[in-house]
């Protein structure tokens, strides 16, 4: 059953042109979806439509319908929708409220009025999934590294056990170590927690192999919506629409154009190595 249903969605902010120009989208429970596209294509706007911030907190004009976990976003408050949809921002510091990691992760749980033992259980689970060591509990979040901060932000969302988690460019502000840590958490989320995950990303090297489905949003429209293997098949189409497929995909695509290889586009470095061995093995 679809947990997200978007039908004919159009949105414009007060005084702007249409930012979303007729989006139809349906996401099944448990799917891992990557949303890609150049800046100003409407990716973040679409994400805010899914957690109800649009239309509830922004002035503008909405057409069409968004139903998330059975809730029409026009008929439910942001707080109600937040119980089903967790949101992770690019800059983790923007969402910190507390003086210690423990308070940060437990904050919403206390607000939800959960019993103490359940709070403890969820806290422990969220920290384990995001690989935050116990001795971090008393540290102030702002003293952590970028990757650790983002993992705390993700833990605090996970602890609420939302059915849907949306991450808006979760690695864009991080250094390479931080990026790797956060991708590792996404992998673990996919493996051990059957949430529906929607990730907005520019750099696709690490996300491509994780996603069940990739959506290209371009100037407010969905131009492509397919499983990664199919999505990345047409590398030239992606380049024309300002999407940056990982280098190894572009290499293999060029070899195919020259008739030097005729297999599928690789999603990972390992697959690319096999493809190149095959191409070079024809000697």
């Amino acid at each position: 059953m679809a947990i997200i249903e978007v039908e004919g969605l159009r949105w414009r902010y007060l005084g702007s042109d249409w930012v979303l120009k007729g989006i139809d989208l349906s996401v099944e429970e448990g799917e891992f979806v990557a949303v890609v596209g150049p800046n100003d294509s409407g990716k973040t706007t679409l994400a805010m439509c899914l957690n109800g911030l649009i239309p509830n907190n922004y002035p503008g004009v909405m057409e069409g319908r968004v139903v998330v976990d059975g809730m029409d976003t026009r008929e439910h408050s942001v707080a109600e929708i937040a119980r089903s949809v967790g949101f992770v921002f690019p800059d983790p510091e923007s969402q910190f409220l507390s003086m210690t990691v423990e308070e940060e992760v437990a904050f919403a749980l206390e607000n939800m009025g959960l019993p103490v033992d359940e709070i403890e259980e969820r806290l422990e689970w969220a920290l384990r999934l995001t690989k935050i060591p116990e001795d971090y509990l008393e540290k102030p979040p702002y003293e952590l590294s970028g990757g650790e901060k983002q993992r705390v932000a993700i833990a605090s969302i996970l602890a609420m056990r939302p059915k849907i988690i949306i991450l808006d460019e979760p690695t864009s502000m991080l250094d390479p170590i931080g990026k790797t840590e956060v991708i590792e958490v996404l992998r673990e989320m996919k493996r051990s927690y059957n949430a529906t995950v929607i990730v907005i990303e520019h750099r696709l090297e690490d996300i491509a192999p994780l996603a069940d489905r990739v959506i290209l949003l371009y100037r407010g429209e969905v131009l492509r919506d397919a499983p990664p293997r199919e999505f990345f098949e047409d590398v030239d189409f992606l380049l024309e629409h300002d999407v940056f497929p990982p280098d190894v995909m572009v290499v293999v695509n060029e070899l195919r154009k020259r008739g030097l290889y005729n297999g599928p586009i690789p999603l990972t470095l390992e697959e690319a190595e096999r493809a190149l061995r095959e191409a070079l093995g024809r000697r």
Partner: protein
Amino acid sequence: MEAVRVESIRYVYPDGTVGLEEASLTIEEGEFLAFIGQNGSGKTTLAKNIAGLLKPTEGRVLVYGQDTREVPMSKMATLVGYIFQNPDHQLFNQTVYDEIAYGPRNLKLPEDEVEERVREAMEIVGLPESFREGHPFFLTRGLRQRVAIASILAMRPRVIIVDEPTTGQDFRQSIDIMDFLLKLNREHGHTIVIITHDMPIVAKYAQRTVVMAWGRILLDGPTRWVFSQVEVLAEAHIKPPQVTRLAQRLADLGVPPDVLTVEEMVGAVEALLSRSQ
């Protein structure tokens, strides 16, 4: 001609954190360099010492032969320009024109010279004339960054340091900004230093790369050589670009392990195939 000489400097922040230890390097005029390393590795601290925004605790930094501790800030601004990652950290005027004119006016240049420099800087970064009276904060981030760059260019600094030019930018925007820096380097003779985590961008644009970790310079040399130093890079938790890693996995088949770009990789495969025919 030597543009920058960093002589075994140490830098300690006011809170006691050691930012740099034993750092030395020289930069020739006209080079295009990248400083890479994790956050906290010292790359920004080094860059700020070169720009004179920080002064070394020990050792000295010479820019065109002049000690950064002795050059007045107004003179320094004509030698090294530093473009912050977040353009909003450096924009504070009410119009695009005043923003770009701010530096030249501080140099006490006559107003017609100021006007000329603003016009030139806006042209180089591709800001249309019609933007002159607009407020910087009503522009998109990409355009605000151009205003920030123009305001540095108007000072005509010989060395330009750009902190994370491609963070938050998409594919097209990244290429645009880097091609523009390359043009400043090739056609206008500016020395360019980028501070970045974006390895494909380093591979494509920088001739020379400086790798930093724990406040020290770990590697400093031609980018091609740096990315082939796999073990040292691993210590600094830096992965070479994906295409370089692919080439390194295929070294046993004769693919050169220092491939930097997609074009080079395709060329290497073609060469191997034609040789065997």
